[in-house]
C-alpha cells in the first residue's frame, strides 16, 4: 500500500486518468479537471502541473485502491494482480511462441490458457474503462500512452497467436479433446477480440480527435504567428508572381500529434484495424485540405456554370487566387501532405493482408491529391470555356503557364499516380492554350470588322493601329508562351482530326511568302500585321488628298515600326528584314508625298520657260511668283492642320521639304527677283523670303491650322 502511494504521487497522470471512478462511468467530471484536460490536450507537457493537481485531487484518496492495480509502472514485486507483471508474463509467452515459430516448430504450445491471460484482460479492461469514461486523459503523458498502446499491442499479438493456434488445430483431429480445447481457445479469442475491438474503437476515436483537434487549431505551433495577416495579404494580392508574398502555411499537424498518430496507426494496423484508421485519416485530411484552401488561400469553389455566367471583372479577380492556390498546393501543400501521410503510415510493415503497406501512405495521398487536383483543374477548364474576349488573353496565358510549369514535376509530386493527373493537367493546359490561340486569332476579326468610313482627321494614327500595336506589345510579353501555345496547338490539330481551328484554314493564303522556318506564332503575327496594313491602306483611300493619305500611311507606319522596335520581343519575331522593309515603304510614302505635294510648286520655280534668249518675260515671271505664293499658302494652310505626332518623322519631313523647296526658291529668288521692280512690285510678288518659307515649313503637320500670316 505504501509503495503504491508513493508510486501514485510519482505518477500523477495515471491518477488523473483514473480519477473519474471506474465504477460509475456516468459520474460527472469535476469542472477543474475538464479544464485541465483541455489544456493538456493542447499543451502536452503539463506533467509537472498535473502532478500538483493530482496531489490536490480530493478524490485521490478514494481512488488509490484502484490505482494500485492499474499503475503501469508498478515495480515487479508489487502485490498481484499487477498489469506490469502480467504484461511481462505475456511478453515471455509471446517470445517463446515467436521463438518456436522462428525455429519452425510446427506445433504451437497448447497452452492450457495460462491464467495470467484472463487477469491481463481484466486489468486492461479496467484501464480502458477509465479512458472511455474520461477520454481526455489519454496521451497527455507519453509514457502513459505507450503503456496503453503496449497493452493493445499485446492483445493484438495474443489475438494473432490464438487465431493461428485455433487455425492450425482446426485440421488436426484430436477427437474427443477437440471440442473442449477448441471451445476454450475460442472463448479466449472471443474475450481477446472483444477487448481488442473496444481498444481499437477507442484508439480510432482518439485518432480522429487528434486529427480534428489540430485541424481546428489549424496550425503547427511555430508557424502560428501573424498568419492571419499574411493570408489576408495574399488573398488581396493580385500579383501571385512575386513568390516572396506566398504564404507557405500548410495545414499540417504538429509534430507531437503526428508522433502520436503514427503510434496509434501502427497499433491499429497491427491489430488488423488499419482500414478504420485509414478511413478516418482520409476523411479528416481531405476536409482539412479543402478547409485550408478556402480559409488560408482564399480559394472559392465555383461551379462551371457559375463561371460561365460571371462577368469578367469578378472572374478575373478569382484567377490570381486560383493561381496562388495551385502554386501553393503543388509546391508546398502536396509535398507536405505526402510527408504527413508517410510519417503517420510510412513505417508500417505489412500486417494487414488487405492493405499493402508502403502503399497505405501512397494510396491515401493519391486519393486526396487526385480529388483536389481535379477540382482545381475544373476551374481552369471552366475559365477556358468562357466566351472569348481579347482582354482575357493575358490571364489565360498566366493560367497556362501556371499549369505548364508544374507538369514536369508531376511524377515526383504524385509518385503513385498512373498519369491521370498529368493527363488532366495537360488537357486543361491545352484548353487554355487553344482558347488563347483563338483569342489571339480573333485579332484578325477585330481588324477585319473595323470598317469605319470616317477618316481620322489630319491623317493621324488610327485608333485601330494603336489598339492592335499596344495589344501586340502586351501579348509579346508572353511571346515565348505564345510561341509554345501556337506550336502545341498545331500539333494537337494533327492528332485530333475532327476539329480544325480557323487559323489553319487561312494558312494556305499566306504561306506563299513565308518561309518554312517561320514559327506558327510568328506567322500569325505577320498575318495580323498584313491585315492591319491592308486595312490601313483601305483607310488611306478614304482621304481625298493623295498627300494626306501618304501622311496617314507614314504616321501609322511610323507608329507600327516604333512600337515594334520598342519591344524586343516583337522585334525578334518580326525580324530585322521586316523592319527594314517597313522603313523602305515609309520612305516611298515620303517620296510620294513630296512628289504629290511639292513637285507642282517646284515646277513654278523652274527656270524653264522663263528665259528666252537671255530675256526674261516679266508677265510670265509674275505669274510664276503668283502661282508659287498661292500654292505655298494653300499647302501651308492645309498641311499645318495635318498631324504628324512623331517628332522625328515631323522633323524629317520638314527637313526634307526644306531641302527640296528652299534651295530652289532661294536660287529662283536670286536669279529672278532682280527682274521685278523694287518696291511695289517686289512687295506684291515676293511675299516670302527664303527664311519665311522655312518658318512656314516648320509649321506644317502641327495639327493646328495656321492662318495666313
Amino acid at each position, binding site marked *: 500500500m505504501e509503495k503504491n502511494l508513493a508510486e501514485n504521487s510519482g505518477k500523477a497522470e495515471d491518477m488523473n486518468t483514473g480519477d473519474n471512478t471506474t465504477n460509475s462511468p456516468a459520474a460527472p467530471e469535476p469542472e477543474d479537471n475538464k479544464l485541465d484536460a483541455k489544456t493538456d490536450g493542447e499543451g502536452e507537457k503539463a506533467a509537472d502541473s498535473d502532478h500538483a493537481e493530482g496531489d490536490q485531487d480530493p478524490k485521490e484518496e478514494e481512488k488509490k485502491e484502484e490505482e494500485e492495480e492499474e499503475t503501469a509502472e508498478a515495480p515487479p514485486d508489487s502485490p498481484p494482480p499487477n498489469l506490469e507483471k502480467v504484461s511481462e508474463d505475456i511478453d515471455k509467452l509471446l517470445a517463446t511462441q515467436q521463438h518456436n515459430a522462428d525455429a519452425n516448430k510446427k506445433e504451437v504450445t497448447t497452452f492450457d490458457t495460462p491464467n495470467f491471460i484472463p487477469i491481463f484482460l481484466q486489468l486492461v479492461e479496467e484501464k480502458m474503462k477509465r479512458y472511455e469514461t474520461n477520454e481526455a486523459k489519454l496521451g497527455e503523458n507519453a509514457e502513459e500512452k505507450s503503456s496503453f498502446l503496449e497493452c493493445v499491442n499485446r492483445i493484438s499479438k495474443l489475438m494473432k497467436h490464438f487465431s493461428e493456434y485455433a487455425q492450425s488445430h482446426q485440421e488436426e483431429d484430436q477427437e474427443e479433446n477437440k471440442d473442449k480445447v477448441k471451445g476454450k481457445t475460442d472463448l479466449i479469442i472471443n474475450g481477446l477480440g472483444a477487448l481488442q475491438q473496444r481498444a481499437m474503437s477507442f484508439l480510432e476515436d482518439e485518432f480522429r480527435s487528434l486529427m480534428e483537434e489540430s485541424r481546428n487549431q489549424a496550425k503547427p505551433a511555430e508557424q502560428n504567428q501573424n498568419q492571419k495577416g499574411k493570408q489576408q495579404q495574399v488573398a488581396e494580392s493580385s500579383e501571385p508572381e512575386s513568390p516572396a508574398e506566398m504564404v507557405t502555411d500548410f495545414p499540417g499537424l504538429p509534430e507531437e500529434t503526428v508522433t502520436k498518430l503514427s503510434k496509434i496507426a501502427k497499433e491499429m494496423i497491427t491489430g488488423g484495424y488499419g482500414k478504420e484508421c485509414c478511413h478516418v485519416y*482520409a476523411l479528416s485530411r481531405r476536409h482539412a485540405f479543402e478547409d485550408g484552401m478556402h480559409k488560408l488561400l482564399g480559394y472559392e*469553389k465555383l461551379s462551371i456554370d*457559375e463561371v460561365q455566367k460571371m462577368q469578367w471583372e469578378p472572374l478575373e479577380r478569382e484567377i490570381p487566387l486560383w493561381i496562388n492556390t495551385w502554386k501553393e498546393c503543388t509546391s508546398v501543400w502536396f509535398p507536405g501532405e505526402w510527408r504527413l501521410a508517410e510519417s503517420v503510415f510510412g513505417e508500417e510493415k505489412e500486417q494487414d493482408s488487405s492493405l499493402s503497406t508502403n502503399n497505405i501512405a501512397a494510396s491515401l495521398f493519391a486519393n486526396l491529391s487526385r480529388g483536389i487536383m481535379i477540382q482545381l483543374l475544373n476551374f481552369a477548364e471552366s475559365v477556358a470555356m468562357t466566351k472569348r474576349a481579347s482582354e482575357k488573353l493575358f490571364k489565360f496565358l498566366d493560367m497556362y503557364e501556371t499549369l505548364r510549369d508544374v507538369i514536369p514535376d508531376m511524377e515526383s509530386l504524385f509518385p503513385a499516380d498512373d498519369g491521370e493527373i498529368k493527363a488532366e493537367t495537360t488537357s486543361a493546359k491545352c484548353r487554355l492554350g487553344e482558347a488563347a490561340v483563338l483569342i489571339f486569332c480573333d485579332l484578325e476579326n477585330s481588324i477585319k470588322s473595323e470598317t469605319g468610313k470616317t477618316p481620322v482627321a489630319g491623317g493621324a494614327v488610327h485608333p485601330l493601329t494603336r489598339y492592335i500595336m499596344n495589344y501586340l506589345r502586351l501579348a509579346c510579353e508572353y511571346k515565348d508562351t505564345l510561341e509554345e501555345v501556337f506550336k502545341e496547338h498545331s500539333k494537337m490539330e494533327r492528332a485530333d482530326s475532327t476539329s480544325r481551328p480557323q487559323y489553319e484554314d487561312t494558312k494556305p493564303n499566306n504561306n506563299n511568302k513565308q518561309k518554312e522556318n517561320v514559327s506558327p506564332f510568328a506567322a500569325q503575327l505577320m498575318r495580323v500585321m498584313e491585315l492591319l496594313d*491592308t486595312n490601313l491602306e483601305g483607310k488611306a483611300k478614304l482621304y481625298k488628298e493623295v498627300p494626306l493619305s501618304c501622311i496617314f500611311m507614314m504616321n501609322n507606319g511610323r507608329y507600327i515600326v516604333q512600337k515594334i522596335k520598342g519591344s524586343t520581343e516583337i522585334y525578334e519575331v518580326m525580324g530585322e528584314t521586316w523592319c527594314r522593309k517597313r522603313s523602305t515603304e515609309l520612305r516611298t510614302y515620303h517620296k510620294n508625298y513630296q512628289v504629290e505635294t511639292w513637285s507642282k510648286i517646284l515646277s513654278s520655280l523652274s527656270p524653264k520657260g522663263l528665259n528666252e534668249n537671255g530675256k526674261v518675260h516679266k508677265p510670265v515671271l509674275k505669274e510664276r511668283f503668283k502661282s508659287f505664293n498661292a500654292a505655298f499658302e494653300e499647302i501651308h494652310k492645309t498641311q499645318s492642320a495635318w498631324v504628324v505626332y512623331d517628332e522625328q518623322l515631323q522633323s524629317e519631313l520638314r527637313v526634307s521639304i526644306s531641302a527640296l523647296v528652299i534651295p530652289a526658291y532661294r536660287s529662283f529668288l536670286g536669279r529672278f527677283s532682280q527682274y521685278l521692280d523694287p518696291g511695289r512690285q517686289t512687295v506684291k510678288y515676293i511675299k516670302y523670303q527664303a527664311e519665311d518659307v522655312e518658318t512656314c515649313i516648320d509649321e506644317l503637320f502641327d495639327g493646328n491650322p495656321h492662318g495666313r500670316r
Partner: protein
Amino acid sequence: MPATTENNNQGSFLGRISIRRNQVMSMDGSHDQEMEDLELFQKHIGDRFSELLSSTSEDSSSSSSSSSSGDALLSIAWLRRLLDEFLCCEAEFKAVVLMGRDPSQITKPPLDKLLPDLLDRGVKSLDVCNAVTLGLDAVKNLQRLAEIAVAALEQTPLGDGQVRRAKKALSALVAAMLNDDSNAAAKGTERTRSFGRRAGNTNATKYKSLSWSMAKNWSAAKQIHAMMSNLTAPRGAESSGLAQPMYMMSTVLVFVMWTLVAAVPCQERNGLGTHFPLPRQLGWAQPMIGLQEKIAEEWKKKEKKGNVGLLEEMQRMDKLGQSLIEFADSFQFPTETERMDEVKKHVEELGDICKKMEEGLEPLQQQIREVFHRVVRSRTEFLLALDQAAKSTTPAL
C-alpha cells in the same frame, strides 16, 4: 466553299460510327441523303436505349449476384453501359449535325437558338459530371465501411469483438445512406443522440463528412431542372430538319444526367423529380420512357426512406447492412451454425458488392470524366463551326 472540302477528310471517323455519308456532299445538300442520316440517327438512339432496357435484369435486388441476363438497372455496370451509349450517341450526333456540313447551316433558324441551348445544357452537364464524381467518392467511402464489416465478419471464430466492429461500420454505412439533405428529421435525431463530449465523433458529423462538396449553393436537382428548360420537341416543318437531332441529343443528355443524379449521391438532389417530359409520340423515345418509368418506380420505393442514391450496389448494401446489423444485435458468442450459414451468405454477398465497387467505381469515374472531356471538346468544335459560319458571312473589306 472551303469549309466543306476542308472537312471531307474526316471520313474515317464517320466510318467508325457507322453512319454513311457521301464524301462529296454539296452544300445545298442532297436532301435524301440527309433524311436518311437523320433516320439512321433516330433509329440508333432507339436501338441503343431499347438494348439497355431489354438487357436490364429485372430482379435487381435479389441476391442472385450472378445476373446472367444482364446488368441490374442502375448498377455500376449498367451505368457504365449507359455512358458508353451516351458517348456513341454523341459521336453520331456530331457526325450528323456537324461533319461534312457547311457550318452556315447550323446558324440558321431554328438552330440559331437550339444549338446554343444544347451547348448550354452541355456546360451544365459538366457540373453534374463533377458532382457525380464526388458522389462516387462518397460511395467509395461507403465501400470502405462495408469492407470493414466484411473483414470483421469473415473471421473465424466469429467473436463479440468482430461483430461489434462490423456493427459499428455497418451502422455508419446505413446511416450515411439515410443522411440525405432532405432527411432533416433523421439528422435531428442524430444530433440529439450524439450528445456529449464525443459528439464531434458520433454519427451525424461523421456521416456528413463522407462526401465532399461542390460549390456553395450548388444543387444537382436545380441543375437538372435548368437543363430541362426549353426542352420541347420540334414541330411542323422543323421536325424534319436538323432541329430533330438537336432535340434528340438534348433529350439523351438530360436523361443520362438525370439518371446519374438519381443513382449517385449528389449535393442537393432534393426535388429532382421522378419524371421529365419525354415525347411519348416519338418512337426513339419509347425505350427511354420505359427506363424512366422503371427508375421512377425504384425511386418511389426508396423515397420514404430518404435515400441518397438508387445505385443498385448501394441499395443492396443497405439491405445487407441492415440485416447484418440485426444479426449483430442478437449476436451471442458462440453462434449457432445454422444462423451462421445465412450470415455467411450475406457477408459473401456484401463482399461481392465491395469487389464490384472496387473494380467498377474507378472506371465509372474515369468514364464520367471522359464524358466531361467529350462534352467540352464537342462544344469547342461547335463553337468553331459557328465562328467559321460567322466569318464567311462577314463582309469583306
